């Protein structure tokens, strides 16, 4: 078995394709199993992957460069494009970094609405993931349902913020309007649908002999790898690590909400899926709590100085939030002008899809590659930005 793997020299696998022992295979960027627009360069021996390299950059737009030449208010429409399926974390973090540097506090009601926004988008993002995860193992039925439910959540967003995908709701200084009338009932209806769906998923996916046979024991992340690879979020929690930014470094109003950190211990694809399934329930409960307790009146945003020539005091800061993939952070450096000096986006997909996936993929059957990839829940646009 051991001679199956090519020798590693200087951190690189050395293989001789001419020997006929190995076959090089590209997956992506237009492969339907790949999470979005990235590609994998796989060296396989038989059915087994002996070396894996991720290639990213297909979606690179140079956000960090573009933001250096845009005013702060003009960064706000562009940050949400950094992560397409879950834009709201970006919006919040950009606003939070700015507010931190400017030393301003947003109104209470805006905090609640921001939290609501993030939790709803968490739900949408997880629904998208569950579609991908089941699809990667060939269970199209669940994928179809999941995407439909995600769309119902997007409908809520549309009604609330005026857009399906890029909500651009969390503006620096607050939020962009309250919830429309009667919207709460729609939310409840959708949540009930999602809950029913989650029960169905439990029956159909988690208690499925075939799914179990593929997911259990696949891509095990041992607890000692967590810090070495910088693993965060549900991926880490699947390995029994009790960490959640929402609890550890509470932001917005998470310290006022009632929830627990969901974990599993096995560290395999199944455990990670289970963690996310639980977190979807958690998100639903949080949304209900927020809608019940959220203040209905009060200011929605504080008035910033004229946004056309808004200057942020010089300094640097880092703010973080828990996205569906784990810790998401913005590192912002300001030099006191109307343009940000540097904004670095720390996306969890970055370390997950590159270093971790390359490590985990070795030894995995090629048919399981995408199941493994999906279980890390990475979104390529946030890797290359």
């Amino acid at each position: 078995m051991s001679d199956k793997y090519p020798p590693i020299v200087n951190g690189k696998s050395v293989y001789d394709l001419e020997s006929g022992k190995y076959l090089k295979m590209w997956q992506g960027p237009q492969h339907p199993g790949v999470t979005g627009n990235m590609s994998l360069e796989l060296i396989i021996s038989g059915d087994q992957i002996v070396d894996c390299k991720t290639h990213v950059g297909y979606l690179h737009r140079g956000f960090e460069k573009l933001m250096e030449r845009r005013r702060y208010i003009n960064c706000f429409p562009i940050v949400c494009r950094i992560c397409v399926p879950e834009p709201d974390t970006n919006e919040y973090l950009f606003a939070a970094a700015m507010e931190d540097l400017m030393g301003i506090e947003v109104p209470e009601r805006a905090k609640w609405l921001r939290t609501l926004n993030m939790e709803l988008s968490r739900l949408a993002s997880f629904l998208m993931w569950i579609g991908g995860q089941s699809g990667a193992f060939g269970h199209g039925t669940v994928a179809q349902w999941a995407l439909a439910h995600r769309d119902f959540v997007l409908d809520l967003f549309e009604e609330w913020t005026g857009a399906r995908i890029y909500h651009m709701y969390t503006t620096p200084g607050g939020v962009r309007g309250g919830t429309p009338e009667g919207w709460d009932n729609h939310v409840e209806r959708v949540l009930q649908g999602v809950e029913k769906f989650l029960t169905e998923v439990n029956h159909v996916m988690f208690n499925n002999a075939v799914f179990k046979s593929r997911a259990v024991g696949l891509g095990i992340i041992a607890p000692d790898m967590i810090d070495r690879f910088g693993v965060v979020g549900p991926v880490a929690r699947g390995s029994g690590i009790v960490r959640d930014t929402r609890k550890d470094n509470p932001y917005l109003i998470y310290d006022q909400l009632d929830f627990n950190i969901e974990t599993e211990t096995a560290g395999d694809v199944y455990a990670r899926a289970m963690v996310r399934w639980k977190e979807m329930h958690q998100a639903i409960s949080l949304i209900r709590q927020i809608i019940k307790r959220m203040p209905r009146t009060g200011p929605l945003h504080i008035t910033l100085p004229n946004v056309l020539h808004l200057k942020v005091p010089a300094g640097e800061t880092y703010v973080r939030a828990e996205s569906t993939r784990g810790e998401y952070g913005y590192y912002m450096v300001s030099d006191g002008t109307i343009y940000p000096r540097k904004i670095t986006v720390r996306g969890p997909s970055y370390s997950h899809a590159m270093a971790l996936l390359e490590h985990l993929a070795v030894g995995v059957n090629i048919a399981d590659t995408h199941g493994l990839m999906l279980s890390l829940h990475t979104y390529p646009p946030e890797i290359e930005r």
Partner: protein
Amino acid sequence: MKQLDTELSKQFTLSDYVEQRPELAFVTVEKQQLVPLLTYLRDTKKYTHLVTLTAVDWLEVNQFQLTYLLHNYETHTDIGIRVKLDRDNPVMETIHHLWEQARVYQRELHEMFGIDFPGSPGVEEPMILEGWQGPPVMRRDFDTAKYSLETYDHRKRDTREPEIYMKEKLYPED
């Protein structure tokens, strides 16, 4: 955090301590002392999580600033370690042996800023830009708008500033 800074100052040459928030501080360290400092923080001070590694281009003073952001999961505090590099010869020690994902960050920095990390696996390989032949793009002296306008086909804008337009139209002689 201040306490940590004091403690670290005994062993390392630190400067520019800034406490942004009670749980977040930034400090600058000498280039040679970075790896010992990071190792010390990781192994002794439980700053086990490398949050991010990024660079800021201070073109005016001809320096790159590398920021290593570490997180402590027990105290939930972050410390940002800044290192200043000479912009003309940006070379830095690699830390991929401390954290695996660092090699990806370093690879990106090499590509985007032209900062070299000798010994980091695959650091020379292009990561995001394929076949890019210009200067490293994230450097501030690279003007992306200019490049874009020169390289790609843009629709010619036909816009007027109200002030100038009104002058031309209403009082051209004044």
